[in-house]
């Protein structure tokens, strides 16, 4: 299945980290050279956030209730929109196959790619969220909670989404299928993420929500790269 790997354990550990770092640096460099694609995702987030008040009401109290959910659903959709970037181009030009054949473990390379994906598409959304939250009337502390929940939650979206993106490589109607596969898996992240802001506004503690998001992030970071790497290998067969 895999290519030749360094034999001794130390070599493999170095190999895994080296593979992660290499994939991270490579994908970041590519992202920096295709900045306009990244700007599209951030702009998409801003536009979706703008649509909800137009579709409902400019009433301040309603928007205050809707706000956290809208900002989170928009983050989900932006993440979904950006997922094909993760593997599709590398799959199309054969780079992904070379990565699978390289001596580095594929889950490490996939981890690096996911990290780069979050830094280039998730992090901008996290940074934009406070600005997007202002028109919804959220105050400073609530925005802080929202930012924290997005900072913990959006990496989970990239990790889970990577599995869906890998499973739909080279598949008919990949875009719509990806949404069907990934969005149901996002449900817990959405509930805990938007719930953190709701809990804060209701005067309850946010520790439970943020702890659960953190636990989910750790579990996803450990498990998802292996599932995504297995899915990549299936796509390459």
């Amino acid at each position, binding site marked *: 299945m895999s290519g030749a790997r360094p034999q001794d354990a130390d070599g493999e550990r170095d190999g895994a980290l080296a593979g992660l770092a290499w994939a991270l640096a490579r994908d970041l460099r590519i992202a920096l050279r295709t900045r306009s694609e990244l700007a599209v995702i951030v702009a998409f987030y801003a536009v979706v956030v703008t649509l909800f008040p137009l579709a409902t009401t400019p009433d301040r109290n309603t928007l205050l209730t809707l706000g956290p959910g809208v900002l989170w659903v928009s983050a989900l959709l932006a993440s979904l929109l950006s997922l094909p970037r993760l593997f599709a181009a590398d799959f199309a030009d054969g780079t992904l196959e070379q990565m699978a054949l390289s001596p580095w473990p594929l889950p490490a390379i996939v981890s690096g790619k996911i990290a780069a994906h979050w830094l280039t598409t998730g992090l901008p959304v996290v940074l934009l969220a406070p600005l997007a939250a202002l028109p919804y009337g959220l105050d400073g502390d609530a925005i802080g909670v929202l930012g924290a929940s997005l900072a913990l939650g959006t990496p989970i979206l990239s990790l889970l989404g990577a*599995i869906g993106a890998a*499973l739909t490589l080279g*598949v*008919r109607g990949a875009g719509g299928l990806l949404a069907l596969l990934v969005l*149901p898996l996002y449900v817990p992240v959405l509930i805990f993420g938007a719930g953190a802001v709701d809990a804060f506004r209701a005067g309850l503690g946010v520790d439970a929500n943020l702890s659960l998001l953190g636990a989910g992030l750790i579990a996803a970071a450990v*498990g998802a790269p292996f*599932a995504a790497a297995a899915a990549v290998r299936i796509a390459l067969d």
Partner: protein
Amino acid sequence: MANSWYRYASPASFHPVALRLAPVFALAAAILAIAGLYVGFVVAPTDATQGEAYRIIYVHVPTAWMAMFVYLVMAFWSALALGFNTRLSAMMAQALAPTGAIMAALALWTGAFWGRPTWGTYWAWDARMTSTLILLFLYFGVMALRGAIDDPRRADRACAILTLVGAVNVPIIYFSVRWWNTLHQGASVSLTAAPTMAKTMLAGMLLMTFAAWAWCIAAALWRVCAIVVERERGASWLAPDPALKGVT
């Protein structure tokens, strides 16, 4: 002993067995369903609080249980398919997905009809309803992924990974949804707080549960037979269909 079981991992030896077992389970499902419906609709008393409307429980609860249970069985076969690379395990998982989706859809549908007279609404964003709906979406996802991939062996493994990721997520989704709902408001009517059931009600529900169980097994076995014939049509153990003679 063990070898005789492994023998049935081969589609060629499993197919005739499944073809013979499926009608047995279908007959059992029919008998159990007739008995269960008789007990449920004729023998069982009218519920003190919900009147006659409660009788939909005899369809609703068995289908809801099967919707969850079939996903577990599907995950089990998917794990076997990935672990041992056995074709038949993947075919079983493939055969179970539509059955599970039907069960989830039936549970939601009957739940809506039950909710209308008792809760006054078809849909209440109750934790169980919402997680069953998401379970239905997961079934749709597995079936859609299967349909989008032409190579059946690749589809087997892709669907197996998706099923297992979903299986890890199902309990998380269930508890997150339950938590979300309790944050907002408690359900107005709770099943767990309902008065203890009369013995005949329980008997009717158990009969219907076994009927649903037998029906799922029969449907999955018939479907797996069709899948085996479809996928192994080039194999020599399948006698060529006389209708296809000369077609090559």
